[in-house]
Protein backbone atom coordinates (compact mmCIF):
# COMPACT_ATOMS: atom_id res chain seq x y z
CA UNK A 1 0.00 0.00 0.00
CA UNK A 2 1.06 3.57 -0.26
CA UNK A 3 -0.21 6.26 1.98
CA UNK A 4 0.29 9.96 1.54
CA UNK A 5 2.97 11.55 3.64
CA UNK A 6 0.86 13.51 6.09
CA UNK A 7 1.01 12.86 9.78
CA UNK A 8 -2.42 11.29 9.97
CA UNK A 9 -4.56 9.05 7.80
CA UNK A 10 -6.74 10.93 5.35
CA UNK A 11 -10.25 9.72 4.77
CA UNK A 12 -9.26 8.22 1.43
CA UNK A 13 -6.18 6.52 2.86
CA UNK A 14 -8.18 5.04 5.68
CA UNK A 15 -10.84 3.64 3.41
CA UNK A 16 -8.11 2.21 1.18
CA UNK A 17 -6.51 0.66 4.24
CA UNK A 18 -9.81 -0.74 5.47
CA UNK A 19 -10.31 -2.29 2.08
CA UNK A 20 -7.34 -4.52 2.83
CA UNK A 21 -9.19 -6.14 5.74
CA UNK A 22 -11.79 -8.44 4.22
CA UNK A 23 -13.59 -9.02 7.51
CA UNK A 24 -14.42 -5.33 7.91
CA UNK A 25 -17.01 -5.56 5.17
CA UNK A 26 -18.95 -8.32 6.96
CA UNK A 27 -22.26 -7.68 8.62
CA UNK A 28 -23.32 -8.90 12.04
CA UNK A 29 -27.00 -9.27 12.94
CA UNK A 30 -27.68 -7.44 9.70
CA UNK A 31 -25.56 -4.44 10.72
CA UNK A 32 -22.15 -3.48 9.32
CA UNK A 33 -19.46 -4.83 11.63
CA UNK A 34 -17.84 -2.23 13.90
CA UNK A 35 -14.92 -4.09 15.39
CA UNK A 36 -13.75 -2.42 18.60
CA UNK A 37 -12.12 -5.52 20.12
CA UNK A 38 -8.71 -5.36 18.50
CA UNK A 39 -6.87 -5.39 21.84
CA UNK A 40 -8.14 -8.94 22.29
CA UNK A 41 -7.05 -9.87 18.79
CA UNK A 42 -6.64 -7.76 15.68
CA UNK A 43 -8.06 -8.53 12.26
CA UNK A 44 -5.66 -9.53 9.49
CA UNK A 45 -4.96 -7.69 6.24
CA UNK A 46 -5.24 -9.73 3.07
CA UNK A 47 -1.48 -9.75 2.48
CA UNK A 48 -1.10 -11.82 5.66
CA UNK A 49 -3.93 -14.20 4.81
CA UNK A 50 -2.82 -14.59 1.20
CA UNK A 51 0.85 -14.88 2.10
CA UNK A 52 0.21 -17.77 4.45
CA UNK A 53 -2.00 -19.51 1.91
CA UNK A 54 0.56 -18.93 -0.82
CA UNK A 55 3.32 -20.49 1.24
CA UNK A 56 1.25 -23.62 1.82
CA UNK A 57 0.36 -23.71 -1.86
CA UNK A 58 3.81 -23.37 -3.31
CA UNK A 59 6.80 -23.43 -0.98
CA UNK A 60 6.19 -25.52 2.07
CA UNK A 61 8.12 -28.26 3.87
CA UNK A 62 9.52 -28.81 7.35
CA UNK A 63 12.56 -26.66 8.04
CA UNK A 64 16.14 -26.74 9.31
CA UNK A 65 17.16 -30.32 8.67
CA UNK A 66 15.82 -30.60 5.16
CA UNK A 67 18.34 -30.63 2.34
CA UNK A 68 15.84 -30.28 -0.46
CA UNK A 69 14.58 -27.23 -2.26
CA UNK A 70 11.18 -26.92 -0.55
CA UNK A 71 12.76 -27.26 2.85
CA UNK A 72 15.44 -24.71 2.03
CA UNK A 73 12.79 -22.25 0.85
CA UNK A 74 10.71 -22.77 4.01
CA UNK A 75 13.78 -22.43 6.20
CA UNK A 76 14.75 -19.22 4.44
CA UNK A 77 11.27 -17.77 4.84
CA UNK A 78 11.14 -18.73 8.53
CA UNK A 79 14.58 -17.33 9.26
CA UNK A 80 13.82 -14.19 7.27
CA UNK A 81 10.81 -13.68 9.56
CA UNK A 82 13.17 -13.91 12.53
CA UNK A 83 15.40 -11.25 11.02
CA UNK A 84 12.36 -9.12 10.35
CA UNK A 85 11.26 -9.32 13.98
CA UNK A 86 14.79 -8.55 15.18
CA UNK A 87 14.87 -5.43 13.06
CA UNK A 88 11.33 -4.49 14.13
CA UNK A 89 12.30 -4.62 17.81
CA UNK A 90 15.75 -3.16 17.28
CA UNK A 91 17.38 -6.28 18.75
CA UNK A 92 21.15 -6.54 18.79
CA UNK A 93 21.06 -9.71 16.72
CA UNK A 94 18.61 -12.10 15.15
CA UNK A 95 19.67 -14.84 17.57
CA UNK A 96 17.99 -12.87 20.34
CA UNK A 97 14.56 -13.56 18.83
CA UNK A 98 12.77 -16.73 19.92
CA UNK A 99 9.52 -17.76 18.32
CA UNK A 100 6.91 -19.05 20.77
CA UNK A 101 3.23 -19.98 20.69
CA UNK A 102 2.07 -16.61 22.02
CA UNK A 103 3.02 -14.01 24.60
CA UNK A 104 1.89 -16.30 27.38
CA UNK A 105 4.36 -19.00 26.37
CA UNK A 106 7.12 -16.40 26.04
CA UNK A 107 6.55 -15.30 29.65
CA UNK A 108 6.28 -18.88 30.90
CA UNK A 109 9.54 -19.70 29.13
CA UNK A 110 11.28 -16.98 31.12
CA UNK A 111 9.51 -18.01 34.34
CA UNK A 112 10.60 -21.63 33.95
CA UNK A 113 14.05 -21.11 32.49
CA UNK A 114 15.35 -17.84 33.92
CA UNK A 115 13.16 -18.54 36.94
CA UNK A 116 15.18 -21.66 37.71
CA UNK A 117 18.19 -19.42 38.28
CA UNK A 118 16.41 -17.29 40.90
CA UNK A 119 17.16 -18.38 44.47
CA UNK A 120 14.89 -18.60 47.52
CA UNK A 121 14.95 -15.26 49.29
CA UNK A 122 15.12 -13.39 46.01
CA UNK A 123 12.02 -11.79 44.54
CA UNK A 124 10.12 -11.12 41.35
CA UNK A 125 8.37 -7.76 41.11
CA UNK A 126 5.20 -7.28 39.07
CA UNK A 127 2.52 -4.57 39.13
CA UNK A 128 -1.13 -4.31 40.06
CA UNK A 129 -2.19 -3.94 36.46
CA UNK A 130 -0.73 -7.11 34.97
CA UNK A 131 -2.59 -9.39 32.62
CA UNK A 132 -2.89 -12.90 34.09
CA UNK A 133 -0.25 -13.95 31.55
CA UNK A 134 2.28 -11.84 33.42
CA UNK A 135 1.08 -12.79 36.87
CA UNK A 136 0.14 -16.46 37.11
CA UNK A 137 3.52 -17.75 35.78
CA UNK A 138 5.26 -15.81 38.56
CA UNK A 139 2.85 -17.10 41.19
CA UNK A 140 3.56 -20.60 39.99
CA UNK A 141 7.30 -19.89 40.18
CA UNK A 142 6.87 -18.49 43.68
CA UNK A 143 5.08 -21.63 44.80
CA UNK A 144 7.61 -23.89 43.07
CA UNK A 145 10.80 -22.16 44.04
CA UNK A 146 10.05 -20.42 47.31
CA UNK A 147 10.80 -16.95 46.05
CA UNK A 148 8.97 -13.76 46.90
CA UNK A 149 6.37 -12.12 44.68
CA UNK A 150 6.10 -8.36 45.10
CA UNK A 151 3.41 -6.18 43.60
CA UNK A 152 3.97 -2.54 42.71
CA UNK A 153 0.78 -0.51 43.26
CA UNK A 154 -0.87 1.87 40.85
CA UNK A 155 -2.53 5.21 41.49
CA UNK A 156 -6.28 5.70 41.19
CA UNK A 157 -5.63 7.23 37.78
CA UNK A 158 -4.02 3.98 36.69
CA UNK A 159 -0.39 5.04 36.65
CA UNK A 160 2.34 2.98 38.19
CA UNK A 161 3.39 4.39 41.57
CA UNK A 162 7.07 5.02 40.90
CA UNK A 163 7.95 5.77 44.49
CA UNK A 164 6.50 2.50 45.61
CA UNK A 165 8.23 0.75 42.71
CA UNK A 166 11.51 2.22 43.79
CA UNK A 167 10.91 1.25 47.41
CA UNK A 168 10.13 -2.33 46.44
CA UNK A 169 13.42 -2.52 44.57
CA UNK A 170 15.50 -0.88 47.26
CA UNK A 171 16.61 -3.91 49.28
CA UNK A 172 18.34 -5.36 46.22
CA UNK A 173 16.55 -8.68 46.54
CA UNK A 174 14.52 -8.34 43.36
CA UNK A 175 16.09 -10.59 40.73
CA UNK A 176 13.57 -9.85 38.02
CA UNK A 177 10.95 -7.21 37.33
CA UNK A 178 8.10 -8.30 35.03
CA UNK A 179 5.85 -5.45 34.07
CA UNK A 180 3.52 -4.51 31.28
CA UNK A 181 4.55 -1.95 28.69
CA UNK A 182 0.87 -1.14 28.13
CA UNK A 183 -2.16 -2.16 30.16
CA UNK A 184 -4.87 -3.98 28.24
CA UNK A 185 -7.51 -2.56 30.58
CA UNK A 186 -6.50 0.99 31.35
CA UNK A 187 -4.51 1.70 28.22
CA UNK A 188 -1.70 2.97 30.47
CA UNK A 189 1.63 3.11 28.66
CA UNK A 190 4.22 2.61 31.38
CA UNK A 191 7.44 4.66 31.46
CA UNK A 192 9.42 1.64 30.31
CA UNK A 193 12.84 3.26 29.95
CA UNK A 194 12.61 4.61 33.51
CA UNK A 195 11.44 1.28 34.85
CA UNK A 196 14.37 -0.45 33.17
CA UNK A 197 16.86 2.05 34.52
CA UNK A 198 15.51 1.79 38.05
CA UNK A 199 15.47 -2.00 37.89
CA UNK A 200 19.02 -2.12 36.62
CA UNK A 201 20.29 0.27 39.30
CA UNK A 202 18.80 -2.06 41.87
CA UNK A 203 20.57 -4.99 40.28
CA UNK A 204 17.42 -6.52 38.82
CA UNK A 205 16.77 -7.75 35.29
CA UNK A 206 13.53 -6.68 33.64
CA UNK A 207 10.96 -8.27 31.36
CA UNK A 208 8.50 -6.01 29.59
CA UNK A 209 5.20 -7.50 28.44
CA UNK A 210 4.79 -5.71 25.13
CA UNK A 211 1.69 -7.62 23.99
CA UNK A 212 -0.28 -4.38 23.70
CA UNK A 213 2.46 -1.77 23.38
CA UNK A 214 4.12 -3.11 20.28
CA UNK A 215 0.91 -2.78 18.30
CA UNK A 216 0.65 0.94 18.82
CA UNK A 217 4.13 2.39 19.25
CA UNK A 218 7.53 1.88 17.73
CA UNK A 219 9.51 -0.13 20.27
CA UNK A 220 13.28 -0.44 20.38
CA UNK A 221 14.48 -2.95 22.93
CA UNK A 222 18.05 -1.71 22.83
CA UNK A 223 17.04 1.89 23.43
CA UNK A 224 14.80 0.71 26.26
CA UNK A 225 17.69 -1.47 27.42
CA UNK A 226 15.18 -4.22 28.24
CA UNK A 227 16.44 -7.67 29.18
CA UNK A 228 13.37 -9.53 27.94
CA UNK A 229 10.50 -8.33 25.79
CA UNK A 230 7.46 -10.35 24.72
CA UNK A 231 4.64 -9.94 22.25
CA UNK A 232 2.03 -12.01 20.42
CA UNK A 233 1.36 -12.24 16.68
CA UNK A 234 -2.43 -12.21 16.61
CA UNK A 235 -2.69 -8.76 18.19
CA UNK A 236 -0.19 -7.36 15.67
CA UNK A 237 -2.39 -7.98 12.59
CA UNK A 238 -0.66 -11.35 12.31
CA UNK A 239 -1.73 -14.99 12.70
CA UNK A 240 -2.66 -16.91 15.83
CA UNK A 241 -0.21 -19.53 17.10
CA UNK A 242 2.90 -17.34 17.03
CA UNK A 243 4.53 -15.16 19.66
CA UNK A 244 7.94 -13.68 20.29
CA UNK A 245 10.42 -13.57 23.13
CA UNK A 246 13.29 -11.16 22.79
CA UNK A 247 16.08 -11.90 25.22
CA UNK A 248 19.47 -10.34 25.67
CA UNK A 249 21.93 -12.81 24.22
CA UNK A 250 24.12 -13.35 27.27
CA UNK A 251 21.05 -14.07 29.38
CA UNK A 252 19.63 -16.52 26.87
CA UNK A 253 22.97 -18.24 26.65
CA UNK A 254 23.17 -18.69 30.40
CA UNK A 255 19.64 -20.03 30.69
CA UNK A 256 18.72 -23.73 30.62
CA UNK A 257 16.27 -24.85 27.93
CA UNK A 258 12.54 -24.81 28.62
CA UNK A 259 11.17 -27.65 26.50
CA UNK A 260 13.14 -30.60 25.16
CA UNK A 261 12.87 -32.14 21.72
CA UNK A 262 14.06 -31.94 18.15
CA UNK A 263 16.12 -28.98 16.90
CA UNK A 264 16.98 -27.66 20.37
CA UNK A 265 19.84 -30.09 20.88
CA UNK A 266 23.38 -30.21 19.67
CA UNK A 267 23.83 -33.89 20.40
CA UNK A 268 21.89 -36.57 22.26
CA UNK A 269 22.83 -39.78 23.95
CA UNK A 270 20.65 -41.62 26.41
CA UNK A 271 22.95 -40.41 29.16
CA UNK A 272 23.20 -36.76 28.28
CA UNK A 273 22.20 -34.13 25.79
CA UNK A 274 23.94 -30.90 24.93
CA UNK A 275 22.02 -27.88 23.79
CA UNK A 276 22.04 -26.07 20.49
CA UNK A 277 23.09 -22.41 20.43
CA UNK A 278 20.37 -19.77 20.84
CA UNK A 279 17.76 -19.29 19.50
CA UNK A 280 17.41 -23.00 18.57
CA UNK A 281 17.90 -24.02 22.23
CA UNK A 282 14.49 -22.54 23.02
CA UNK A 283 12.60 -23.72 19.95
CA UNK A 284 11.90 -27.41 20.54
CA UNK A 285 10.06 -29.28 17.81
CA UNK A 286 8.55 -28.09 14.59
CA UNK A 287 7.82 -24.40 14.96
CA UNK A 288 4.78 -22.53 13.70
CA UNK A 289 6.52 -22.09 10.36
CA UNK A 290 3.71 -20.63 8.30
CA UNK A 291 2.60 -18.45 11.21
CA UNK A 292 6.10 -17.00 11.69
CA UNK A 293 6.13 -16.11 8.02
CA UNK A 294 2.67 -14.56 8.40
CA UNK A 295 3.93 -12.48 11.32
CA UNK A 296 6.83 -11.24 9.20
CA UNK A 297 4.36 -10.15 6.53
CA UNK A 298 2.22 -8.39 9.14
CA UNK A 299 5.25 -6.43 10.31
CA UNK A 300 6.12 -5.49 6.74
CA UNK A 301 2.56 -4.35 6.30
CA UNK A 302 2.69 -2.19 9.44
CA UNK A 303 5.95 -0.64 8.34
CA UNK A 304 4.42 0.12 4.96
CA UNK A 305 1.65 2.03 6.71
CA UNK A 306 4.27 3.59 8.96
CA UNK A 307 4.41 3.79 12.72
CA UNK A 308 4.19 7.57 12.72
CA UNK A 309 0.91 7.25 10.91
CA UNK A 310 -0.35 4.48 13.16
CA UNK A 311 0.53 6.43 16.31
CA UNK A 312 -1.00 9.63 15.05
CA UNK A 313 -4.18 7.94 13.88
CA UNK A 314 -4.67 6.03 17.12
CA UNK A 315 -3.89 9.07 19.25
CA UNK A 316 -6.56 10.97 17.33
CA UNK A 317 -9.06 8.15 17.82
CA UNK A 318 -8.34 7.92 21.53
CA UNK A 319 -8.70 11.67 21.97
CA UNK A 320 -11.97 11.54 20.10
CA UNK A 321 -13.26 8.67 22.23
CA UNK A 322 -12.26 10.45 25.42
CA UNK A 323 -14.24 13.44 24.23
CA UNK A 324 -17.45 11.80 23.02
CA UNK A 325 -17.84 8.85 25.40
CA UNK A 326 -18.01 10.84 28.67
CA UNK A 327 -20.91 12.77 27.17
CA UNK A 328 -23.00 9.59 27.28
CA UNK A 329 -25.12 9.95 30.42
CA UNK A 330 -23.95 7.70 33.23
CA UNK A 331 -20.79 6.64 31.45
CA UNK A 332 -17.50 6.68 33.37
CA UNK A 333 -14.15 6.05 31.81
CA UNK A 334 -11.99 3.74 33.94
CA UNK A 335 -8.58 5.23 34.63
CA UNK A 336 -6.95 8.44 33.55
CA UNK A 337 -3.34 7.50 32.90
CA UNK A 338 -0.83 10.14 31.86
CA UNK A 339 0.03 8.29 28.67
CA UNK A 340 -2.67 6.14 27.12
CA UNK A 341 -2.79 3.86 24.08
CA UNK A 342 -5.96 3.11 22.13
CA UNK A 343 -7.81 1.19 24.81
CA UNK A 344 -10.75 2.68 26.72
CA UNK A 345 -12.55 0.79 29.50
CA UNK A 346 -15.79 2.14 30.84
CA UNK A 347 -18.87 1.44 32.92
CA UNK A 348 -22.36 2.92 32.51
CA UNK A 349 -24.39 3.46 35.64
CA UNK A 350 -25.30 0.04 36.90
CA UNK A 351 -25.93 -1.46 33.49
CA UNK A 352 -23.85 -4.62 33.63
CA UNK A 353 -20.95 -4.63 31.13
CA UNK A 354 -22.17 -7.97 29.77
CA UNK A 355 -25.52 -6.46 28.90
CA UNK A 356 -23.76 -3.51 27.30
CA UNK A 357 -21.66 -5.87 25.19
CA UNK A 358 -24.59 -8.01 24.08
CA UNK A 359 -26.71 -5.01 23.17
CA UNK A 360 -23.84 -3.39 21.29
CA UNK A 361 -23.34 -6.67 19.48
CA UNK A 362 -26.97 -6.69 18.36
CA UNK A 363 -26.09 -3.43 16.68
CA UNK A 364 -23.00 -4.78 14.98
CA UNK A 365 -20.52 -3.36 17.49
CA UNK A 366 -17.93 -5.73 18.99
CA UNK A 367 -16.47 -4.72 22.36
CA UNK A 368 -15.15 -6.84 25.17
CA UNK A 369 -16.70 -7.01 28.64
CA UNK A 370 -15.49 -8.72 31.77
CA UNK A 371 -12.34 -8.72 33.83
CA UNK A 372 -10.08 -8.77 30.75
CA UNK A 373 -7.81 -11.39 32.30
CA UNK A 374 -6.83 -8.90 34.98
CA UNK A 375 -8.89 -9.87 38.03
CA UNK A 376 -6.57 -8.37 40.64
CA UNK A 377 -6.65 -5.06 38.78
CA UNK A 378 -10.45 -5.14 38.77
CA UNK A 379 -10.42 -5.73 42.51
CA UNK A 380 -8.00 -2.84 42.97
CA UNK A 381 -10.38 -0.63 41.00
CA UNK A 382 -13.37 -1.85 43.01
CA UNK A 383 -15.06 -3.30 39.96
CA UNK A 384 -16.03 -6.77 38.85
CA UNK A 385 -16.10 -5.99 35.16
CA UNK A 386 -15.84 -3.22 32.61
CA UNK A 387 -16.74 -2.82 28.98
CA UNK A 388 -13.75 -2.07 26.77
CA UNK A 389 -13.48 -0.49 23.34
CA UNK A 390 -10.10 -0.83 21.70
CA UNK A 391 -8.85 0.75 18.54
CA UNK A 392 -6.71 -0.38 15.65
CA UNK A 393 -5.25 1.31 12.64
CA UNK A 394 -8.46 0.47 10.73
CA UNK A 395 -10.79 2.08 13.29
CA UNK A 396 -12.62 5.27 12.28
CA UNK A 397 -13.94 8.20 14.29
CA UNK A 398 -17.33 7.48 12.82
CA UNK A 399 -17.29 4.05 14.44
CA UNK A 400 -16.63 5.66 17.80
CA UNK A 401 -19.54 8.04 17.20
CA UNK A 402 -21.82 5.10 16.46
CA UNK A 403 -20.59 3.45 19.64
CA UNK A 404 -21.45 6.55 21.67
CA UNK A 405 -24.88 6.94 20.08
CA UNK A 406 -25.70 3.28 20.64
CA UNK A 407 -24.59 3.46 24.26
CA UNK A 408 -26.99 6.35 24.80
CA UNK A 409 -29.85 4.28 23.51
CA UNK A 410 -28.84 1.28 25.60
CA UNK A 411 -28.93 3.40 28.69
CA UNK A 412 -32.34 4.81 27.88
CA UNK A 413 -33.52 1.30 27.46
CA UNK A 414 -32.43 0.30 30.94
CA UNK A 415 -33.37 3.43 32.89
Amino acid at each position, binding site marked *: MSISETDSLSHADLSHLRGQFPILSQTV*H*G*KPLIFLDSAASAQKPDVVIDGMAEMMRSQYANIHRGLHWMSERSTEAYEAARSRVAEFLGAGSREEIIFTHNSTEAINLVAYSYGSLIRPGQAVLISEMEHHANLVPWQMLRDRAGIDLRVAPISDDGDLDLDAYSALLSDGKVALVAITHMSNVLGTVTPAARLVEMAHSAGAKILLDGSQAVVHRRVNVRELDADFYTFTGHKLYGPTGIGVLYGRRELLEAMPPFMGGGDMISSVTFEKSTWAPVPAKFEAGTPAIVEAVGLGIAIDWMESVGFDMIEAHEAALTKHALRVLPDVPGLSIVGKPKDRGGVVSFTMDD*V*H*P*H*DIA*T*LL*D*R*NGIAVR*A*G*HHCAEPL*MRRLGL*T*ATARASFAVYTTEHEIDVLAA*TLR*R*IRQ*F*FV
Partner: protein
Amino acid sequence: MDACSLYDAVIVARSRSPQYAGTAKAETARAQGTNPLCGDRVRLSLCEERDGIRDLRHETRGCAICIASTDLMAETVMGRTKADALELARRFTDMLNSQSSAADLDDEAGLPGALQAFLPLKTHRSRLRCATLPWTALGEALKHD
Protein backbone atom coordinates in the same frame (compact mmCIF):
# COMPACT_ATOMS: atom_id res chain seq x y z
CA MET B 1 -31.59 0.40 18.45
CA ASP B 2 -31.95 -3.31 17.94
CA ALA B 3 -32.35 -4.71 21.43
CA CYS B 4 -33.50 -8.00 19.94
CA SER B 5 -36.09 -10.14 21.57
CA LEU B 6 -33.50 -11.19 24.15
CA TYR B 7 -33.99 -8.11 26.24
CA ASP B 8 -37.74 -8.37 26.22
CA ALA B 9 -39.86 -6.26 28.50
CA VAL B 10 -40.19 -8.81 31.25
CA ILE B 11 -36.44 -9.46 31.42
CA VAL B 12 -35.58 -5.77 31.59
CA ALA B 13 -38.32 -5.10 34.14
CA ARG B 14 -37.30 -7.95 36.40
CA SER B 15 -33.67 -7.00 36.23
CA ARG B 16 -34.51 -3.45 37.23
CA SER B 17 -36.86 -4.43 40.04
CA PRO B 18 -36.68 -8.04 41.06
CA GLN B 19 -39.78 -9.16 42.90
CA TYR B 20 -38.21 -11.93 44.93
CA ALA B 21 -35.10 -10.24 46.23
CA GLY B 22 -34.17 -10.86 49.84
CA THR B 23 -34.14 -13.90 52.12
CA ALA B 24 -36.86 -16.42 52.73
CA LYS B 25 -38.88 -16.29 55.87
CA ALA B 26 -38.27 -19.52 57.78
CA GLU B 27 -35.25 -20.28 55.64
CA THR B 28 -34.41 -23.99 55.53
CA ALA B 29 -31.59 -23.93 52.97
CA ARG B 30 -29.15 -21.61 51.28
CA ALA B 31 -27.14 -22.00 48.10
CA GLN B 32 -24.75 -19.92 46.10
CA GLY B 33 -23.77 -20.01 42.45
CA THR B 34 -20.90 -18.03 40.98
CA ASN B 35 -19.56 -17.63 37.51
CA PRO B 36 -15.87 -16.90 37.93
CA LEU B 37 -15.67 -15.85 34.30
CA CYS B 38 -17.70 -12.73 34.90
CA GLY B 39 -18.08 -12.41 38.65
CA ASP B 40 -21.84 -13.03 38.64
CA ARG B 41 -23.06 -14.32 41.97
CA VAL B 42 -26.46 -15.71 42.92
CA ARG B 43 -27.39 -16.34 46.55
CA LEU B 44 -30.54 -18.35 47.11
CA SER B 45 -32.51 -18.59 50.31
CA LEU B 46 -35.16 -21.34 50.43
CA CYS B 47 -37.94 -22.43 52.65
CA GLU B 48 -38.71 -26.01 51.77
CA GLU B 49 -41.49 -28.02 53.33
CA ARG B 50 -42.53 -31.58 52.83
CA ASP B 51 -44.94 -30.78 50.06
CA GLY B 52 -42.56 -28.53 48.18
CA ILE B 53 -40.85 -25.18 47.92
CA ARG B 54 -42.70 -22.74 50.07
CA ASP B 55 -40.55 -19.67 49.57
CA LEU B 56 -37.52 -18.77 47.49
CA ARG B 57 -35.69 -15.45 47.61
CA HIS B 58 -32.39 -14.30 46.17
CA GLU B 59 -29.62 -11.77 46.32
CA THR B 60 -28.10 -11.54 42.88
CA ARG B 61 -25.16 -9.56 41.64
CA GLY B 62 -24.93 -9.84 37.92
CA CYS B 63 -26.20 -8.85 34.54
CA ALA B 64 -29.81 -8.30 33.55
CA ILE B 65 -30.15 -11.82 32.20
CA CYS B 66 -28.88 -13.35 35.41
CA ILE B 67 -31.01 -11.24 37.73
CA ALA B 68 -34.16 -11.72 35.65
CA SER B 69 -33.55 -15.43 35.32
CA THR B 70 -33.16 -15.80 39.06
CA ASP B 71 -36.23 -13.77 39.78
CA LEU B 72 -38.36 -15.62 37.23
CA MET B 73 -37.06 -18.91 38.55
CA ALA B 74 -38.20 -17.95 42.04
CA GLU B 75 -41.63 -17.08 40.74
CA THR B 76 -41.90 -20.29 38.74
CA VAL B 77 -40.75 -22.86 41.26
CA MET B 78 -42.51 -21.52 44.30
CA GLY B 79 -45.24 -23.90 45.30
CA ARG B 80 -43.81 -26.76 43.23
CA THR B 81 -42.57 -30.03 44.61
CA LYS B 82 -38.87 -30.61 44.71
CA ALA B 83 -39.09 -33.21 41.94
CA ASP B 84 -41.05 -30.82 39.81
CA ALA B 85 -38.57 -28.03 40.35
CA LEU B 86 -35.62 -30.25 39.47
CA GLU B 87 -37.40 -31.42 36.34
CA LEU B 88 -38.00 -27.81 35.36
CA ALA B 89 -34.33 -26.99 35.94
CA ARG B 90 -33.38 -29.85 33.66
CA ARG B 91 -35.81 -28.84 30.94
CA PHE B 92 -34.80 -25.20 31.06
CA THR B 93 -31.09 -26.01 30.81
CA ASP B 94 -31.64 -28.60 28.10
CA MET B 95 -33.71 -26.18 26.09
CA LEU B 96 -30.97 -23.58 26.13
CA ASN B 97 -28.14 -26.00 25.46
CA SER B 98 -29.82 -27.98 22.70
CA GLN B 99 -28.65 -27.26 19.19
CA SER B 100 -32.12 -26.92 17.71
CA SER B 101 -33.19 -23.42 16.87
CA ALA B 102 -35.48 -21.36 19.04
CA ALA B 103 -38.26 -21.66 16.47
CA ASP B 104 -38.26 -25.47 16.59
CA LEU B 105 -38.47 -25.48 20.32
CA ASP B 106 -41.12 -22.94 21.13
CA ASP B 107 -43.86 -25.52 21.33
CA GLU B 108 -42.04 -28.59 22.53
CA ALA B 109 -40.28 -27.06 25.44
CA GLY B 110 -43.43 -27.07 27.47
CA LEU B 111 -41.95 -24.45 29.75
CA PRO B 112 -43.95 -21.89 31.65
CA GLY B 113 -44.41 -18.85 29.43
CA ALA B 114 -42.20 -16.53 31.44
CA LEU B 115 -39.18 -18.78 30.99
CA GLN B 116 -39.59 -18.76 27.23
CA ALA B 117 -38.33 -15.19 27.32
CA PHE B 118 -34.87 -16.72 27.45
CA LEU B 119 -35.16 -18.65 24.21
CA PRO B 120 -33.36 -15.98 22.14
CA LEU B 121 -30.26 -16.73 24.23
CA LYS B 122 -29.77 -19.72 21.99
CA THR B 123 -28.17 -17.37 19.49
CA HIS B 124 -25.98 -15.76 22.17
CA ARG B 125 -24.36 -18.86 23.55
CA SER B 126 -21.72 -16.91 25.46
CA ARG B 127 -24.54 -15.64 27.67
CA LEU B 128 -26.17 -19.00 28.39
CA ARG B 129 -24.56 -19.35 31.77
CA CYS B 130 -26.04 -16.05 32.87
CA ALA B 131 -29.49 -17.63 32.64
CA THR B 132 -28.66 -21.13 33.88
CA LEU B 133 -26.58 -20.07 36.89
CA PRO B 134 -29.56 -19.74 39.31
CA TRP B 135 -30.96 -23.08 38.15
CA THR B 136 -27.66 -24.80 38.78
CA ALA B 137 -27.57 -23.24 42.24
CA LEU B 138 -31.14 -24.39 42.88
CA GLY B 139 -30.23 -27.92 41.85
CA GLU B 140 -27.38 -27.91 44.35
CA ALA B 141 -29.62 -26.54 47.09
CA LEU B 142 -32.27 -29.17 46.55
CA LYS B 143 -29.82 -32.02 46.24
CA HIS B 144 -28.21 -31.11 49.51
CA ASP B 145 -31.10 -32.22 51.62
